[in-house]
Each structure stands twice: as structure tokens, then as C-alpha cells.
């Protein structure tokens, strides 16, 4: 009897061992604990690397001058101060620049989304002569560095007296489908509209809707996911671009007064700080001298609208990325 007992015990032990192994290393159906651990550790580490600059910027921007010099206060400020933000707001002329920048980013974005959606639909839905050629041109426009065309465009603008510091050149390029990275937007929409069932659109046409109405009433509502993605992207691109924006606004030549963006203001942050606070005059002894905390506060302020927009749209964005088929196959 005792032998079978022993055997049973052995067997139970083996089974337990097997179970333990399965739980740790996983089976074909389920991931084991070890694997999960590895995945989570990796994810958290990389998430930290991603967040690190933002967190660093944020904590720095709240520090006082003495904290900056104090090596022991690397992360947490000993005393939270809002003065850096006040200074940065003055330096950037924040509310004014913000308003101008919003105009400069929002208006072309709306045009861009509208036009690119139409162009993508045209390419996806219809067959017409030279279609292959135009598609090739589209791809070429994506591959060529923008610098090739930006200079002649700038000349065209200044010849037509368009680069006058208003939103005009942005709107014109966006309406003609040549906004910042329009090609990518067109490709996203193209890919998306291709997945729209043709039968739906054709059914609408048989029911008496015109081609444009079919597009507007059927195809557009079906591609809200793509619209969210493209809107967010274009807004970000318009917000963040500096070189092209300077050219469109006529910086360096005809530039006098007009629109500006926070990113451009950020580029000349130090100079404007010095003029605003007259810091250079008494540079050695001055307590006004620019420091990292103020710079970081300025940077935070410049990207704050994007962060707010992203966190508002975040859920829709992440979900629509799943469905949008951003990819061109």
C-alpha cells in the first residue's frame, strides 16, 4: 500500500512541478508569468524613457534659481515657483502668440483635411486616364526633400506678394493640396476610402444621389477615424514646422509685422528674454539672467496646447489608429 502512496505522492509532485513550470514559462495558449514580467518591465522602462524628457522639463521649469544650482535637488524642486512661467509668458508674449499660432495652425488644417479627403477619394474610387502618372507624382512629392521645391515656391510667393505675414499662403497651399506633408494625408485617405465598400456608394447613386452627395453623405461619415488621425497630424505639423513657416511668412526679407508661431518665438527665446528683461546690460551681477528653468518653462508653454489637444483626443486617436489603416500597402 505504501508503495502506491509513494507513487501517488511522486505523481502529485510531478504534476505540481509541471503546473508551476507552465505558469512561469507559459503554454501555447497563455503567456507565462516570466514572459509577462519581461514584457511589463520593458514597457515600463521604455515608457519612462519616453516620458523622461517631458518630466525633466516639467520639474525643471518649477525650480528656483538656487534649486538649479543645488545638485541634490535634481528631480524634485525644494520649493515650487511659478515665476519662471510668468517670465516665459512675458518673453514669448504668450497669449498674443498663442492666438496667432492657433489661427495659423487651425485654418490650414481644416482646409487640408477637407481637400486631402476629396483627393484621396478621387484616387480610390475612380479610374481615369493618367491616374498612374499622377499617383507616381504623388509618391515622388513624398520622396523628394521639401528643400527642392521650397525655394522656388518662396520666390513664387514673394513675386505674387503673398509672403506678407498673413495666413494667406498657408490657406492657398492647403486648398491646392500642397500643405505640410499633404501627401501623407492624401495617402491615408486614399487607403481608407479604398476600404469603403463600393456597393454602398453605388447604391446611393442609384437612389438618385449625385457623385458628390454620395461622397459627402456616405464616404465621409465612414472615414471619421481617418479624419481624426489626419486632423491631429496636420495640426501638429503646422504647429511644429519652423523653416517653412518662416519662408511663408516672409522672414528675412519682406518681414515686418504679422503672424508668428510659438515655435519661432521659442527659437529666439534667449534674445527676446534679454530685451524683455534688459538682462544683458547688467549681465554679471544681474539676478535676471536667463536660466534653464525659464527656458524649460518656455518650452513647456510652447507645447502645452499640443499636449492638451492630444490628451483630449487621445482616446479617439488611439482607437482610430487601429482602424484607420494608416498603412499603404
Amino acid at each position, binding site marked *: 500500500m505504501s508503495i502506491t502512496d509513494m507513487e501517488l505522492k511522486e505523481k502529485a509532485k510531478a504534476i505540481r512541478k509541471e503546473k508551476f513550470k507552465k505558469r512561469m514559462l507559459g503554454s501555447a495558449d497563455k503567456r507565462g508569468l516570466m514572459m509577462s514580467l519581461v514584457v511589463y518591465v520593458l514597457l515600463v522602462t521604455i515608457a519612462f524613457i519616453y516620458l523622461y524628457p517631458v518630466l525633466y522639463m516639467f520639474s525643471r521649469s518649477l525650480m528656483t534659481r538656487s534649486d538649479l544650482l543645488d545638485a541634490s535637488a535634481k528631480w524634485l524642486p525644494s520649493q515650487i515657483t511659478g515665476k519662471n512661467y510668468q517670465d516665459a509668458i512675458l518673453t514669448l508674449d504668450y497669449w498674443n502668440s498663442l492666438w496667432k499660432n492657433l489661427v495659423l495652425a487651425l485654418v490650414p488644417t481644416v482646409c487640408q483635411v477637407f481637400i486631402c479627403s476629396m483627393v484621396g477619394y478621387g484616387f480610390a474610387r*475612380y479610374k481615369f486616364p493618367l491616374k498612374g502618372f499622377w499617383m507616381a507624382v504623388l509618391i515622388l512629392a513624398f520622396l523628394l*526633400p521639401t528643400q527642392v521645391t521650397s525655394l522656388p*515656391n518662396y520666390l513664387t510667393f514673394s513675386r505674387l506678394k503673398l509672403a506678407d505675414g498673413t495666413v494667406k499662403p498657408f490657406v492657398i497651399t492647403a486648398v491646392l493640396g500642397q500643405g505640410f506633408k499633404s501627401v501623407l494625408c492624401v495617402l491615408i485617405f486614399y487607403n481608407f476610402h479604398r476600404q469603403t465598400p463600393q456597393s454602398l456608394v453605388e447604391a446611393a447613386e442609384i437612389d438618385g444621389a449625385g457623385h458628390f452627395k454620395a*461622397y459627402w453623405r456616405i464616404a465621409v461619415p465612414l472615414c471619421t477615424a481617418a479624419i481624426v488621425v489626419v486632423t491631429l497630424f496636420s495640426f501638429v505639423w503646422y504647429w511644429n514646422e519652423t523653416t517653412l513657416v518662416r519662408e511663408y511668412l516672409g522672414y528675412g526679407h519682406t518681414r515686418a509685422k504679422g503672424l508668428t508661431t510659438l515655435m519661432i518665438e*521659442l527659437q529666439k527665446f534667449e534674445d527676446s528674454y534679454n530685451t524683455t528683461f534688459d538682462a544683458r546690460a547688467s549681465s554679471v551681477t544681474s539676478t535676471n539672467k536667463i536660466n534653464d528653468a525659464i527656458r524649460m518653462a518656455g518650452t513647456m508653454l510652447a507645447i502645452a496646447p499640443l499636449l492638451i489637444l492630444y490628451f483630449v483626443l487621445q482616446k479617439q486617436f488611439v482607437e482610430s489608429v487601429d482602424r484607420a489603416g494608416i*498603412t499603404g500597402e
Partner: protein
Amino acid sequence: MGNWLYEKVLPLLEYVPYVLLGCVCAALIAALIYALVRRSQKKPVQRFIRDTLWGYFFIFPWLVGICIFFLSGVADSLLYSFYNLKLDNGLQLIPLTGEDAMGNTVYTPLANYISVFNKELNYPVTLANFAVSLILQLPVIIAFSLIIALMLNGKIRGRGFFRTVFFLPVIIATGPVMNQLTAQGVSSVPMVSQNVITSVLAGMPEFISTPISDLFSQLILILWNSGIQILIFLAGLQKVPTAMYEAAKIDGASGWETFWKITLPTLRSMILLNSIYTVVTLATGSTNPIIDLIYNATYAVTKGYSYAAAMTWMYTVIVAILLLITFLIIREKKEKKSKDIWRRDVESAKRGMQSKKVRKLLERGKAA
């Protein structure tokens, strides 16, 4: 001969896009009139004509834009790179001159291209450095974004949170902000002990070690550049049919095998797309030193616009070559790849043949 080419033929290049646009418009108007006439006669308009008209209706704004801005920009920039143009007081189109001993004007084509090498001694070196760092960065970005996408695609807790974090760089990784961050020294991971890397690299020749140490010192920047790539991979992963994974599981394939045999091959086109996208963004991004060089040359007194255009075109050729190499390495090798006899059979059956092996297998199946 040279003069004739310069004064008569080359300037025509400028009009090509407009002529193209004009021709298309004329053809469209003709088609429209034809369609209207047919309609007034109560005859149905052919589908082909209708589709053409509506197709062009939808893409028309873009068509005008691409001709006016893109194609004519390309033509202009190519044209001007053969002349001698500066941007100082207004714009002056001065034909490229050099005078010979007799006082005649001599047209020397490619003069700008040649003078790039004389004036910009750093240019070839900068180009080479850029190419090397691109080749090093590309696999890192692709591998990294693939891993992230695979992890985000799996069943994990807090998926929403992680996704939000990983797409964050798409929002804020840009020129001025990046410059501020680099100036702060935030662009390298603080935990990675730099000493280990430098000691390893010390034994290598300089042209290899410099880009690699750059790679490590800019790790965050590189990782931040992979936001869109993660998006593309995620979208691709969602399209892999789940039935395939189930079939593989039934056949007893491990997760590792599934990844290599199913996931990776289906993602091949995504990898190609991602690589091309990465090369293009790295090559045209505002943090790129060459773009800076070109931009400065445009407004420099001694160099000028034509010179910058020549530089841009040289750069474009280099980027095109890099793109071509990427494409050739990653593209799908169709015929050779499929070792699977059934699949090969489907392919050959399309051409009207069926392989002997499969026929035998089928016959055996019928007999049984």
C-alpha cells in the same frame, strides 16, 4: 552649341508643368462639353467619360497645386542650378558666365555642382557621415518600433496608457523643442554607463566608432523618432488574419515560430514602408545638418540660390540611392521565397501548369 542650349532649350523646362496642366484642362473641358451635349440629346454618357470627369473633379485642386507648386518648383530648382542666381537685392537671373581669353561668354554647365566641392570642403564628409549614421539608425528604429508594436498588440493591462505614452513623440518631437532638450543633455539615457561604451569603442577605427557613440548619445532622440513607425506596425499587425495564428497553434507551432513564419512575413511590406518613411524623415528633418548647410548657403553672399539648388540636387541623388538600396534589401523576392509547394503550385497553376509533386499528392489523396 552651349549658348543655344542655355538660352533657348533649358528655359523651356520652366513651362513644362504649365503645359501639362493646360493640356489636361483642355482635355477635361472637351470631355465635359461632349458629356453635356450627349446629355442634352438624352443619350447616356459612357461610364468611362463619367468616371474620368468625376475623378478629375475630386483631384482637381490637388492637380492644380501639384503643377503650380511641386512640379514647377522641381523644374525651377533644376533649371536654376545650372545658372548663377543670388537672392540679395531682389532676384536677378544672371546667365552663368565665365569669360574666355577672347572675351566671349562661355557656358560651363555643372559649374555650381563643381564649386560645391571647392567651396564646401566639409560637404562630402558630412554626406558620408549622414549616410553612415542613417544606416546605423535605420535598423535600430525599425527593430525597436516592431518590438514595441508587438508588445502593444498583445493582451496587456494598461494598454491605453502605454499607447498614449508611445504616441507622445509624434506630438512633440520637433525642431525647436528637440534643440532645447538636446541643449539640456536630456537626449541621452542617464542610466547607460557611457564609460563601458567608450572603452569598447576605443579599439575601433574612428569612422565606425564615432557614429556608434553618436547613436548611444542620441538614443532618446532616435527612439522618439519612431512614433509613426509604431503606428504603422500596429495597423499592420491588426491586419494579420487571426485564422492563420489559430491554424498554426493547432499545428503545434510555438510563439517563436509563429512570429518568424507568420507575423514577420506578413509585416514585410510594412517594414519596407517604414524603412522608406524613416529614411525620408531622417533625410528631410530639420535636425539634419545637411539641410542646415543648404539653408545657410541660400542666404550666404558668396554662394547664393543656384549654388544651394545644386547642393540640394546632389543631396537628393544621395538620398535616392539610399532609398533604392533600402528598397532592394527589403523588397519581397517573390518567386524564390515560397518554399511551400502548395503555394508554388497555386502560382504555377495560374500559368497553366501544375507541379508533378502536387499532382502525385493529389492522386494519392483521391486513391485513399
